[in-house]
């Protein structure tokens, strides 16, 4: 075969052009619109401390959402994250009762998270079970253990040094949680978008069979992602427990739905294969801003949940309706 001089360009569009047309841009526009609307609607909105307080609405959920985004891109899901938060918090509470140091508490919280994640991961990868069923089961199991331990009582009495993770400020209005959120956003963004592992996550999520045939250790990738999700639930548990200063078995109840909503709103395909971390970051801000802004206007939380639910369906339905309408 004579070698041809046909040249295939790497890209047809510049990265900038593509970015302008992306989901993330649309979402960013929504975020800006909500921000502007809020700024006009309430005189209390444009206050650095108020805005700083508002970030607590989403930082803990977003930490889990980063790992969940990777897991969903890889074609799996973990509905047990809120229960992992509860179980980790319960373990930390029990340790705090016998006088564990803040460092020990953090270690315990993270370890419980990793163990729970490993348990989910093993059931899904080693036994080949569907993750949605497995994690609905562990969702009851993990929180159930918290209920067995605590019943209708609660743990309090966390050491003073432990308060920093949920209540401390790094600099001026920037809380420790917000700083951690930023660091984790960058770490997960790098992991997903700039490493071989991230590429494998996309490959597995798009077509697990072809990924396996391409020499990717599919089950190993999935197991690591369950571990990471468990770990991040542990991290969120440390922050939430520290912020609340007490542990009830109902801690973080229903959080998994908000995490999944955040991920899907961020443009991650619930069926796997596509999505970005910047999208999830913007979605976190959108959800935080909506909640905070409406809160300032004295709109009750439950009504905000209508908006969140409508947003979740709307962001997927509108482009499809648009496509149908245009033929």
């Amino acid at each position, binding site marked *: 075969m004579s070698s041809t001089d046909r040249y295939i360009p790497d890209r047809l569009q510049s990265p900038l052009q593509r970015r302008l047309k992306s989901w993330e841009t649309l979402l960013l526009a929504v975020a800006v619109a909500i921000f502007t609307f809020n700024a006009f609607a309430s005189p209390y909105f444009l206050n650095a401390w108020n805005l700083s307080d508002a970030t607590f609405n989403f930082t803990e959920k977003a930490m889990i959402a980063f790992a969940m985004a990777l897991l969903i891109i890889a074609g799996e899901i973990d509905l047990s994250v809120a229960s992992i938060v509860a179980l980790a918090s319960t373990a930390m509470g029990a340790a705090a009762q016998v006088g564990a140091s803040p460092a020990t508490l953090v270690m315990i919280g993270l370890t419980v998270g990793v163990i729970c994640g490993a348990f989910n991961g093993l059931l899904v990868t080693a036994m080949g079970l569907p993750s949605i069923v497995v994690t609905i089961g562990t969702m009851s199991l993990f929180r159930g253990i918290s209920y067995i331990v605590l*019943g209708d009582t609660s743990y309090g009495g966390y050491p003073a040094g432990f308060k920093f993770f949920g209540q401390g400020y790094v600099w001026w209005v920037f809380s420790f949680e917000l700083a951690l959120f930023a660091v984790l956003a960058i770490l997960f963004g790098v992991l997903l978008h700039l490493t071989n592992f991230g590429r494998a996550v996309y490959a597995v999520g798009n077509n697990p069979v072809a990924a396996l045939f391409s020499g990717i250790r599919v089950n190993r990738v999935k197991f690591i992602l369950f571990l990471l999700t468990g770990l991040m639930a542990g991290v969120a548990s440390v922050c939430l427990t520290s912020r609340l200063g007490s542990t009830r078995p109902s801690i973080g*109840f229903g959080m998994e739905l908000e995490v999944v909503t955040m991920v899907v709103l961020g443009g991650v395909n*619930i069926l796997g294969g596509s999505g970005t971390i910047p999208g999830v970051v913007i979605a976190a801000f959108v959800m935080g801003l909506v909640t905070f802004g409406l809160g300032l206007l004295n709109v009750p939380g439950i009504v905000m949940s209508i908006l969140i639910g409508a947003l*979740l369906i709307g962001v997927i*339905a509108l482009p*499809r309706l648009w496509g149908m309408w245009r033929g």
Partner: protein
Amino acid sequence: MIRRYLQSREAILSAAILVLIAVIALRFPAFITPANLANVFNDTSPLMILAIGQMIVILTKCIDLSVAANLALTGMVVSLLNIAAPDLPLAVTLLVAVSLGAVLGMFNGILVWKLNIPPIVVTLGTMTIYRGIIFLISKGKWVNAHEMSAPFKALPRHVFLGFPVLSWIALAVILIAIVVMTRTTLGRAFYAVGGNPHAAVYTGLNVGRTQFWAFTISGALAGLTGYLWVSRYAVAYVDIAGGFELDVVAACVIGGISIAGGVGTVGGAVLGALFLGVIKNALPVINISPFWQLAISGAAILIAVVLNSRANRTRGRIILKQTEPVA
């Protein structure tokens, strides 16, 4: 026929429930008095009705997480209706409950069928929307017993031929569901669409439309349960039956309904619900804190899904013909 039944999932589950009851009875004979068993059945009625609806949805490869919210919304609507028009015949109330539930289910179904949005996203969204709407129409207030008319509250508790009407309704739903699933074209279509969507197209079935009807049925049953729930407990507020959708899914998984679609029976769903019902009712009797219930049902889900996957291991395509002489 009998031998085949003995090897079925339903038989194994029935045996598990009987063993469970027997073990409890060894220590606490009062548990197996007919009156108490009838009470367990009555208590489990809402779960059984919802599990049947959920089963149909899961058969078609979908999931309906909005059932509990649908129940709560319909319950609130009929309660407010009862306040506004206390003399409205109960038949009309029931009709409103079932129709409203069906409409809410159809909304899910339309989004899944026409816009092709993944069912988990759709119902996650409508779940929060429906709950939010309850708040809007009730302005966050409770509807209490004294506001409801006497006949409205009496129906589920009314004793007819020795059993409460609630039990009779559950029984009727079970029987109708068995007839629909085994003796109608639609019932068989649910199995076909979930079991082998590709082949269903060859048979001339419309997959999306069949899924739409599954959501409609699930919604109608949730609506029916909505009335029964608020009248039985004589109270309606935003959070009734909160998290109950997970119990419903759990009952289905325990009942051997495969989340992958196409596998499951009405009997399985009912037995799965009864299994959870027996545990819930037995815990106080045997002096175990009710806080154990969640962990036990979580463990039951995991055990059930592991056992089911073992039973469903597919056999390989057999090429070698051992019995024939090899040339």
